[in-house]
């Protein structure tokens, strides 16, 4: 062991944490990897995690619940060709790591020994999300006070507000990854989130409004009045708006998507289909399409894990590869996939820093980080006024995609009719459905107003949830199917 691991504070901090708290150091990790490599395997890695998550929630005017969860463990992976063995234990010790390594290597039925491992360390520059105080160390009393204040403020905004639910969730995650190719990486990943939901009533009609924000930064930022008041204002505004919403039209029509969170379109329609595992197996609607046109001219889509403080950002991925900016679609042409180590290797490509996992209890998969479209030159107001009749959707709930057929959905939670180029009546939430490989070929206008979402996205795949971000400028799409009820 001869190297200096990553030079930044986050990496050093996590390395010393695991060494001091659990006696996990370079030489003991090398020993665990040696156990995994006692049979003939191509690659092995070991992943240590120690995560604290806190949550405090309010409803009916009082903070009813506080919780704290401690999750820790070690996962060991051995890989031979396309075959992977994975074992994990919730005890962080070298004994349990070696035991897991022995189980993981059982996927290889061949003897032989890959030889000793010398960890080299992967240096990455700087820290995308330095915090002075871990958000889980902020005293619970301050979180309680914040929620009480939000409750009073939201109720004061309008007598139609009947119920306020708010929660603050903080996470502090420390990871250490070492692999048989010599990688040694570590990170400290803070994550904060504030949610405000209100129920508004008008006669018999009740509607919900929600707004949240978060990212990898100090909890103090969410406690700034400008921020939390804006969340309450938005939640109340949306709930009131929905009290007056009319039935949404059904069928194919022109759709204008507002900036920011509607970028979930890219996540579902494009992002998942470009993940390396589906393309290595050729099960994606985008398989074998590198170099082909999949979007209109002017459309450039990137996945960027290096945006400071963003919810989807990571200094290194969960295989120790530094995150980076990956161009997926360049001026309408498909140019790249999102890779973890395994799938990149099997396809003869480079890992892209997208090997992520929910926790030590899961195997890494190729996953998105922050996925967004670069801005164009159009004035958003001009884009809206260019549409005679259509739908203007500015906020969404969740989405989903069928990777193989390419069909994707995303559900609008705030949308309006467009009539004669003007924003008309708000409509009830409706699901939009389209075909991933061709929806972006129908993008006809791209605004100059790119926004990244406010930090509330969680992506699910194979039962693993990871925090992600999305972004979009205002765009106009010709013909998207809108799932309303009015024929």
């Amino acid at each position: 062991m001869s190297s200096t691991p990553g030079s930044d504070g986050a990496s050093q901090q996590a390395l010393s944490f695991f060494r001091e708290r659990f006696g996990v150091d370079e030489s003991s990790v090398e020993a665990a990897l040696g156990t995994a490599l006692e049979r003939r395997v191509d690659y092995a890695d070991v992943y240590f995690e120690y995560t604290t998550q806190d949550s405090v929630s309010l409803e009916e005017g009082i903070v009813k619940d506080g919780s704290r969860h401690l999750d820790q463990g070690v996962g060991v992976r051995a890989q031979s060709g396309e075959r992977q063995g994975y074992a994990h234990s919730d005890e962080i010790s070298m004994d349990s790591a070696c035991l897991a390594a022995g189980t993981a290597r059982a996927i290889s039925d061949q003897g032989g020994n890959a030889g000793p491992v010398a960890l080299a360390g992967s240096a990455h520059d700087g820290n995308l999300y330095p915090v002075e105080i871990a958000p889980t160390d902020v005293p619970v009393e301050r979180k309680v006070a914040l929620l009480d204040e939000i409750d009073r403020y939201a109720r004061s905004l309008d007598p139609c507000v009947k119920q306020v639910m708010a929660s603050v969730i903080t996470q502090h995650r420390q990871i250490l990854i070492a692999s048989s190719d010599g990688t040694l990486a570590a990170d400290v990943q803070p994550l904060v989130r504030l949610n405000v939901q209100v129920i508004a009533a008008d006669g018999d009609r009740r509607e919900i409004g929600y707004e949240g924000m978060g990212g990898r930064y100090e909890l103090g930022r969410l406690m700034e009045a400008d921020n939390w008041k804006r969340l309450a204002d938005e939640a109340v505004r949306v709930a009131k708006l929905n009290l007056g919403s009319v039935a949404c039209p059904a069928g194919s029509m022109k759709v204008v998507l507002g900036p920011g969170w509607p970028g979930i379109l890219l996540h579902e329609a494009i992002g998942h289909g470009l993940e390396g595992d589906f393309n290595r197996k050729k099960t994606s609607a985008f398989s074998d399409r590198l170099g082909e046109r999949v979007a209109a001219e002017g459309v450039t889509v990137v996945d960027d894990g290096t945006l400071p403080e963003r919810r989807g950002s990571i200094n290194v991925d969960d295989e120790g590869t530094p995150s980076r900016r990956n161009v997926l679609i360049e001026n309408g042409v498909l140019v790249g996939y999102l890779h973890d180590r395994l799938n990149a290797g099997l396809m003869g490509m480079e890992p892209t820093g997208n090997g992520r996992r929910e926790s030590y209890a899961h195997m890494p998969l190729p996953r998105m980080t922050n996925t967004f479209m670069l801005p164009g030159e159009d004035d958003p107001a001009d884009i809206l006024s260019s549409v005679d009749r259509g739908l203007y959707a500015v906020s969404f709930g969740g989405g989903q995609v069928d990777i193989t057929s390419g069909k994707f959905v995303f559900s609008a939670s705030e949308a309006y009719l467009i009539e004669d180029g003007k924003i008309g009546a708000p409509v009830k939430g409706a699901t939009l459905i389209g075909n991933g490989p061709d929806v972006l070929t129908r993008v006809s206008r791209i605004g100059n107003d790119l926004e990244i979402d406010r930090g509330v996205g969680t992506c699910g795949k194979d039962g693993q949830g990871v925090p992600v971000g999305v972004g979009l400028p205002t765009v106009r799409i010709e013909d998207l199917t809108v799932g309303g009820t009015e024929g």
Partner: protein
Amino acid sequence: MSEHQAENDQALVARAIEGARAAGAAQADAVLVRSDSREVKVRGEEIEFVKQADERCLGIRTLFAQEGGLSTALTSTCDLAEEAIDRMAAESVALAKATAPDPHAGLPEGGFAEDLPDLNLIDEGDRNATVEARIEDARSAETAARSADERINNSEGSQAGSDFSKIIYQNSEGFSGQYASAYHSLFSEPLASDGAGKQRDYWMTVGRRIADLDDPGEVGRKAAERALRRLGARPVATCEVPVIFDDMTAPSLLGQLAGCLSGYSIYRESSFLSGSMGESIAAPGIRVIDDGRLPGGLGSKPFDGEGLPTRRNVLVDEGRLESWLLDTYSARKLGLASTGNASRGAGSGPGVGATNLWIEAGEGTLEEIIRDTERGLLVTELIGMGFNPTTGDYSRGASGLWIEAGQISHPVEEITIAGNFGEMLREIDAVGSELVWRGRIAAPPLRVARMTVAGQS
């Protein structure tokens, strides 16, 4: 699991409660969840992965007495060293001191489960099933799927899993209990392709005992059949037609209904069914039952997450709403008694959950319902989360089969189905006879008289 281990687990749970009491908690309960699982996947000829895990996690809930009631906090830890448990118990009490007193908070006032019947949730012999045996199951399903038709030429693979778990629960009011259960599954997801494009679909079998699983070859063949029948799918023109949910998609409607019957969404008035008790909320033929004690049931357990006995509850009878789903807290908020539906994990506090929930089967097979439908849609898969429980507004992505003149005519995709959930429940005009359990929630095929299908203009 060895006897020593069992005693040790019991001692850890007791230690958590003692720790909480010592730190000043008026009441406390704790649950230890132990899980031993293995999961394998075969794709084509190759094993894709083998996963094994042995996990334990302990959850502690403490209630602290303040003026005006008890205040609540929850902590959990996967570190089961005695110092870690002591620390988390103390932290739980410190957290509880910071939250607000609530006159409705607290453990049940008695009525804890006295008999803990053996519900046939595990076959101890299955622990001897080797990883190799489960690989063979996955391989048989994969081979059957891949060789079903020459248009099946790829797959996401076939996966087999076995999970053995043990729940050990104790509270400061004198109840303690434990039970073991198992969950076995086999899942196959092949791809079919022809000149027109490619399609995936899946089929699965699940059970408490390996012997209860369907034949692996059957799982693979059925999955292949379902992928093949989607080839050539296309949208339809926007229209209003009857929509049939098959026994794979109908349970999602029941799952949504269960969410709208949860005591929490009732006292918050965030369910469109708030205030509908005793009223007619579904078609007259609809009967919905939740029963936590079905032998071998995938949602069965002898006691719920608060130590209360599970039981049979009729939620909807002849279309009339008869009961909410309640735990102790939501029941007190509504001036009612718990229905034995507290759910609890190590990392989550008591909430409301269905146990084994189903819609009683009617008459007529799916085929007969299709024959009886002049023109309409049979939904075989739903995607997206387009359901608003507060208003009942429903709009989801769908794929399935188009029906013309009582016959399947062609596969459809890239469409949405939309309506209002309350109206959909009242407009169910056919309930099928097939009721198959593939999880905790089961429903026979259901036909809704009219929904908006959005597709091409």
